[in-house]
């Protein structure tokens, strides 16, 4: 028996979509944090600090933007950090060996993409839940990277290559341009292409999506591959900014990326969220950490604060969504 009462009492969806409202609240929260920090700390509003925040946020965003697509399909990619490490080490080696940054960049992106594709194959062809498949992949990649690097550190890359991570163009760091470009591409892909629409449909109900004629397996392969390529891109920025690569650089990257996705309003159950939300999520995360640094709060508190923000953001989302239904 269906319940028509629920239907008749529901007001129609408001003028703004649920996604737009979510993003709006998040922008407000980010501005609020900025205002508070501006009052508490004199150095927060300095140009140098703001550019620093943006640059740091960009790294989290690159990883998190690909991850957002995965999470939109109700999947998860836990291997992104390990993927960054492996891709960075391989790209670094290629640059050292060949002296060609272009070749290194391509190798880094390709390595990331292949890892992502393998994740996709495990999820689609082997039907392993993404959480488990990518968790296993995390260990495999870590193992490969440690074996490959054998405790060595790669450093000293050509000056031109280092410009990508630390250079400026018209007064703005180059990663910030890259951030804007990929924010645009990601948003366009998710909102304005039919593949994006299909990804939302898969996340909302994979069975119905398949029975509606969506090639679910192919779209999932695409999504995991994109997530891998974005990890590859992050590895290049990382390499270029630090001017070095070690086996363990990926270990602190995965969880912040997931945090950015969740703070940004993408539901782990799939079908809800935006790439722009993830950008703001990365921004909020970075702002808070930056503020804590400026206010000389011990770094030991940072994980705790991150955890509270994630829980708070998801809880508020669920509350507003429940009210909307």
């Amino acid at each position: 028996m269906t319940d028509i009462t629920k239907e008749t009492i529901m007001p129609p969806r408001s003028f703004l979509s649920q996604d737009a409202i979510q993003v709006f609240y998040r922008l407000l929260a980010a501005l609020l944090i900025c205002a508070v920090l501006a009052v508490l700390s004199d150095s927060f509003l300095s140009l140098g600090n703001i550019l620093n925040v943006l640059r740091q946020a960009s790294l989290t965003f690159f990883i998190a933007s690909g991850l957002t697509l995965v999470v939109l399909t109700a999947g998860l990619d836990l291997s992104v950090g390990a993927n960054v490490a492996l891709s960075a080490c391989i790209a670094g080696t290629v640059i050292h060996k060949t002296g060609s940054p272009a070749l290194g960049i391509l190798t880094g992106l390709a390595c990331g993409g292949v890892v992502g594709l393998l994740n996709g194959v495990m999820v689609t062809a082997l039907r392993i839940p993404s959480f488990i498949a990518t968790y296993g992949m995390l260990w495999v990649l870590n193992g490969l990277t440690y074996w490959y690097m054998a405790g060595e550190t790669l450093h000293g890359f050509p000056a031109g290559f280092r410009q990508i991570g630390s250079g400026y163009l018209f007064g703005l760091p180059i990663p910030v341009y890259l951030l804007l470009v990929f924010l645009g591409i990601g948003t366009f892909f998710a909102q304005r292409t039919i593949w994006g629409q299909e990804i939302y449909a898969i996340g909302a109900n994979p069975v119905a999506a398949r029975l509606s004629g969506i090639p679910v397996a192919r779209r999932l392969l695409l999504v995991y591959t994109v997530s891998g390529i974005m990890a590859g891109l992050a590895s290049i920025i990382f390499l270029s900014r630090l001017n070095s690569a070690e086996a363990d650089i990926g270990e602190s990257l995965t969880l912040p990326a997931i945090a950015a996705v969740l703070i940004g309003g993408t539901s782990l159950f799939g079908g809800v969220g935006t790439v722009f939300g993830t950008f703001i999520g990365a921004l909020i995360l970075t702002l808070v950490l930056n503020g804590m640094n400026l206010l000389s709060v011990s770094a030991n508190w940072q994980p705790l604060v991150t955890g509270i923000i994630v829980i708070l953001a998801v809880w508020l989302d669920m509350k507003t969504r429940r009210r909307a239904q």
Partner: protein
Amino acid sequence: MSDALPIEVTSPTPLLELRGISKEFPGVKALDDVSFAVYPGEVHMLLGENGAGKSSLMKVLCGAYRADAGEFYYRGEKVAISSTADAQKLGIAVIFQEFSLVPYLDIAQNIFLGREPKGRIPGTIDRRRILADAKHVLGKIGFDIDPSTTVDKLGVAQQQMVEIAKAISQNARILVMDEPTAALSDRETELLFELIARLKADGVSIVYISHRMAEVFALGDRITVLRDGRRIDGVRPGDVTPDQLVRMMVGRNVDMTYPRHFADKPGEVLLQVKGLTASTGISDINIEVRRGEIVGLCGLVGSGRSEVARAIFGADPVTSGEIIFDGKTISGEPDLAARRGIALIPESRKSEGLALLRSVSDNLVVSALRKLFPSGLFDSRGAQRTSDALIRQLRIATPSARQTVGLLSGGNQQKVVIGKWLAAGSKLFIFDEPTRGIDIGAKSEIFALIDRLVAEGAAALMISSEQIEICHVCDRAYVMREGRIAGHLTRSELTEENIVRLGMHHA
């Protein structure tokens, strides 16, 4: 019509009486001054279209909703039902359509879930006693099965028996059943009816919600009809005709005949299935569907009808055989079948047909994205225009295309599932139980729609457990039995008797 209890009754005091129950949600009166009485050992049929208030009344009865106004009397004494615990104490149990069993626990554990007898060591369960108690309860309802069987191995009918056993073990005196036969085969339905008779004899009262006229007359001692949240009338089955009941339910005269314009001559062959065999339990299926035809696919639940539909659509892998659609062989995933022009309207529209949390518009265009936006660029205004047109064409009752589809009624949700294939321009529509859980008004609209589709050159393959629907709507029908086609019935041979005869085991 009168609002007082109109009927002289077998027992002077009702077991449970509701007086003047009202329940309001913002913007709608779900229940408006409804009075309702259940007498010991009677089967009380609750009738009404979707949205008439049956579900709300049921939820008030079992304490899930709190009534805004009204009084409850148990054996003549005033009581309060303000929580499910209150209802349970009064012996009210509800068997919902969706069961609340834990699949990986066994029958005994499910029956006594949360009330397990304690073992000697604290924190343990007395396994021997729980099995013995379960056996006793199962015996009471005449269900002969090993109580240590896990529930995930049971069919729908058996799970329902476990639910009933659970209710009986809690000393339920009033059993509310929501369309209990919706997913049962004829044989299983018979067994259920026998059980209901037995429960009645034990003095258990049954409140029975049904959309099936035949059951109402076969089982009911009394009938209460609801419409728009109000109690329209209470009658005895002997005093009314089905037509009168329908009129009470819908408040207007409804054309009970199904609209269908039979074509003199069917068109060319659109679908040809040759020797189709799949690991899901179907073998050697041969079917042909021509343009302009509605072809029925009948048989008992579990005879393989849905499996045939899924195999044709590519949803299940095929082991052998050939599917020729529009002159070309197809094999592969559903996306291929969909692109070639086959549409599947699955049996379970909530879990397989719709993304419930997405909007009406999102759901309507999901299968037509490539057709509507050949460049690959999605345009939400274009999607909106297509959706608005479909909403008008199918008369989908929704405040807007942005409405979340899960909030629509069953009939309107079904129209959305059909609509997405209209948008995709499909040529063959495979309907799996298209009218399940849909009220009478929406049913005839859906049949009119199917009729129009085939008149315009499409074709339909229709699975239905409602044999009368098949008989009225289909040009011809295949009858399945145990995974095979047991026979074919032409229009003139298409009668309920013939369908049952062919579909029965050992016929």
